[in-house]
């Protein structure tokens, strides 16, 4: 049965969902719109997240799936896709369902035979209506109101700067106290002490620093006991560097200044990125090398999608999305082996890695396996050292090298090339163990100066990707 506007009205959870869906009806916002000719449609829509949301709808029973973190069901993206289909607002290219659609179909229950159609329980007046959305008028901007708002924003910024300066002072005092007591026993008191400082930093509007500090106890307990003091030293040194750099930001180069402000907690909005013509933009076909997620102490799920393109001399980029954990296990995960045809703008940084999509022309499966890196391990390390010199608080750096052999030494795996042997992350040991028996490989992973977390490898027996 085909979708109709009446059915979409019945499905919409509220009037505002329909209004939001209406704003997504421009075909330019949908780089991918496809159907399989049997009542299954799917598409990709660039939303407020770093990666496009993926939506699939079955016309027969109006089943839907969207990767956005909205808690409204169906979300505006699903409603918009149905609406475009029902009103024939855009052409749907014929195609075979990609893996993510197949996965969803495999998990979902089909239409229940004989099930009653959804009945509108609300009175007619309160029911969401497409007609009401169409009649909405665009509010006229009031210049005076806008000026007042801008003045208010300036006052808020100044107030926040003052609060951040205070919280950085408190953090430096805290670090000095920790060093006076000694790093050897820091892991024993980290949970309580870090939580106290993190609260102070949150109150002081330094959310980025707060996240770093509150993540430290968990990071300590992930590593063997004898390595904890070194990890603590590294984390405290980074926090101190960021605090010092922020305090002296006026004397820093523009990119480093912008980076340290983000590290402290200032957000760069998508609109600001779009408007800043001076930022690095790279247009090309971006191969997904890895996608990983972790839950932060602030109960947000952080999803990283690592990309690489050969365009413009070759670039790595990471798209980062944050989703509330309470929203469930939904995610916007792209899989290694997919290729995004897109233009990206990078956040300002002397080591530009984090990016946002500014134009997305679609996603396809890659024609073949990851070809591997053209760089040897020594050259890759030299590139990382140069990046570290430009940004001293550099955390995870995308390191890719060819001619690497994974070898075991006791309970630890190492990526070896010539005289160099980088330890692989202990957490990846089991998954990476098969790499130790396949000879030389090309390896991509995240290097933090202490251990290399393997994410993707090209080997003699095919491609390996981290689970």
């Amino acid at each position, binding site marked *: 049965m085909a979708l109709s506007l009446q059915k979409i009205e019945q499905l919409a959870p509220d009037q505002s969902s329909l209004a939001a869906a209406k704003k997504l009806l421009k075909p330019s916002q949908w780089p991918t719109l496809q159907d399989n000719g049997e009542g299954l449609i799917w598409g990709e829509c660039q939303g407020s997240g770093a990666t496009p949301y993926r939506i699939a709808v079955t016309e027969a029973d109006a089943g839907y799936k969207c990767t956005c973190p909205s808690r409204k069901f169906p979300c505006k993206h699903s409603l918009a896709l149905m609406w475009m289909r029902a009103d024939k607002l855009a052409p749907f290219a014929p195609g075979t369902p990609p*893996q993510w659609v197949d*996965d969803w*179909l*495999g*998990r*979902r*229950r*089909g239409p229940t035979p004989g099930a009653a159609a959804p009945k509108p329980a609300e009175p007619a007046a309160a029911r969401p209506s497409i007609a009401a959305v169409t009649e909405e008028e665009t509010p006229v901007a009031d210049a005076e109101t806008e000026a007042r708002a801008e003045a208010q924003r300036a006052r808020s910024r100044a107030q926040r700067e003052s609060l951040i300066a205070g919280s950085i002072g408190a953090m*430096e005092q805290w*670090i*000095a106290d920790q*060093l*006076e*007591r*000694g*790093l*050897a026993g820091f892991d024993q008191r980290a949970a309580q002490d870090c939580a106290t400082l993190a609260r102070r930093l949150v109150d002081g509007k330094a959310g980025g620093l707060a996240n770093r500090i509150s993540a430290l106890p968990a990071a300590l307990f992930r590593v063997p006991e004898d390595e904890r*003091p*070194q990890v603590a*030293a*590294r984390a*405290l*040194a*980074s926090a*101190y*560097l960021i605090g*010092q750099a922020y305090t002296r930001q006026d004397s820093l180069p523009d990119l480093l200044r912008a980076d340290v402000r983000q590290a402290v907690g200032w957000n760069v909005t998508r609109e600001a990125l779009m408007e800043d013509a001076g930022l690095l933009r790279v247009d090309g076909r971006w191969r997904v090398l890895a996608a990983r997620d972790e839950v932060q102490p602030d109960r947000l799920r952080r999803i990283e999608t690592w990309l690489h393109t050969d365009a413009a001399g070759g670039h790595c980029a990471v798209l980062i999305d944050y989703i509330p954990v309470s929203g469930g296990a939904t995610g916007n995960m792209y899989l290694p082996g997919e290729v995004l045809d897109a233009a990206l703008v990078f956040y300002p940084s002397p080591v530009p890695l984090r990016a946002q999509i500014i134009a997305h022309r679609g996603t396809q499966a890659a024609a073949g396996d990851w070809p591997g890196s053209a760089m040897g391990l020594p050259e890759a*390390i030299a590139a990382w*050292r140069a990046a*570290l010199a430009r940004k*001293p608080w550099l955390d995870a750096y995308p390191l890719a090298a060819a001619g690497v052999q994974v*070898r*075991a*030494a*006791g309970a*630890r795996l*190492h990526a*070896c090339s010539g*005289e*160099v*042997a*980088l*330890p692989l992350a202990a957490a990846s040991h*089991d*998954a990476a*163990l*098969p790499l*130790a*028996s*396949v000879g030389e490989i090309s390896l991509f992973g995240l290097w933090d*100066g*202490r251990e290399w977390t393997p994410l993707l490898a090209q080997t003699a*027996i*095919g491609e*390996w990707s981290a*689970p």
Partner: protein
Amino acid sequence: MTPAAIIEALMQGTGRRPLQPAGILGEGIAAGDDAAPARMLALAVQAQLHDLPAPPTVFDEVAAAPDMRPIVPEAVRPMILRLVTGKGNPPDDAAAFALAQGLERHGLRLHPFDVPRLAPFVRKHAEMLGIATGEGEGEAGAATAWALWETLDETNWMLATPARKAGFIADMRLADPAKARALVEAQLPLEKAEVRLRLIDALGAGLSSADRPFLESLAADRAPTVKRAVTRLLARLPGTGAAEAQIAELLSRITRGSTGLLRRRVTFSLQMPANVKSAGAEIDWLATNFGGIGCSALAVALGMTPTALLEAAHDDGRLLRGIAFSACAERNWPVIGAIANGRLPDIWTSFLQTGLASFGLVTASERSDWASAAIPERLSLSSLDRHLVSALHAAMESPLPLAQARAVFRAATQSRYLGADLLTAAVAMMPDGGLEDVRQTLASMPPDIAGRARLLADILVRLKEGPRPL
């Protein structure tokens, strides 16, 4: 001061050991500055970061015994991951069992990169997959284990797993029964009861009167299960006291009668012991008492041919079941076929209750012969459920003969318990020749019922098509 010296000093704490800025890293830092320790920490960490971690002095040696079996086709890898990992895809159900069997049957191995993700599945079916799962064995251990199983001979068979040992002996019994018996005789005292039982059952293949002295020497085994198995085998040998005593006991419980007005015909009925009341206990009693004697010997004792015996027992379901068990003991497949296609089309379910091994069906070819006889090709069983089909699968340890697999699949699609688990279990027993038809049938069924079964069928078809080129 070196970076290491600075960090070492900060480990103990500046309260205990004040840090004196010195050297390149201490330049421009005043000794009394409150921020001096933090500044020196930042500099020392940066310096250490630029120096890579020291490499280990010694690396572990990798055993050079590669697993030469071909790897599964590339396209099958994600399908296997979908089949036996994630929510609702147990690593130990009929589909997982069929996958492990399919890999073993086609001589394929899992892709090494998938093994960690498939850990629960690998642990459950390590033997069939040829992967050692012990601590620290890793890839090298897997290769060694596979090589051992692949080249099992009379010098190393005793090192294999219990099922492999029994399979090796059963196969050898068909070629050289005396040698196989000698191997078992030497090994039996060293084995636990569970393994002894498997080895005794394996002697059921190629059983002859030459085995009698050895079996009689085992009649006093300390494990009751082994003792029963020995008694069962002895009863199958003509001329032993055990068989004659068993037949005499049964004759005392069989009552002769007659029926018919114009043409009188003989009837038999079986009187069960008074203490055997439940249906399950009945089957156990029948299997124990009839499963150890041949139906020809029973028929002779009753003064008729096996065919006439069937006719006379036609009205007594219990006696017919007993005759089916005794027919199995002497591999008289036509008699079982006559019972299954006549009065008791569900006779195969009775065999499953006690297990095929208890009738000495230990080789794949014997189990296949039994299935061809016991499962009617026109199976009509609306109460077929997944437990029954899974039990049949577990008992067979291999796909069913094509006609029987089709019959079970057809019955599954018509069962009142039709569901994803039942369909998957039915597909799990389908031999390669029936998979294409099954896929077509499943394609027209709702995905929530047929999805997993279809995925399994797709995988089995791909495995049949051939390995991934090395």
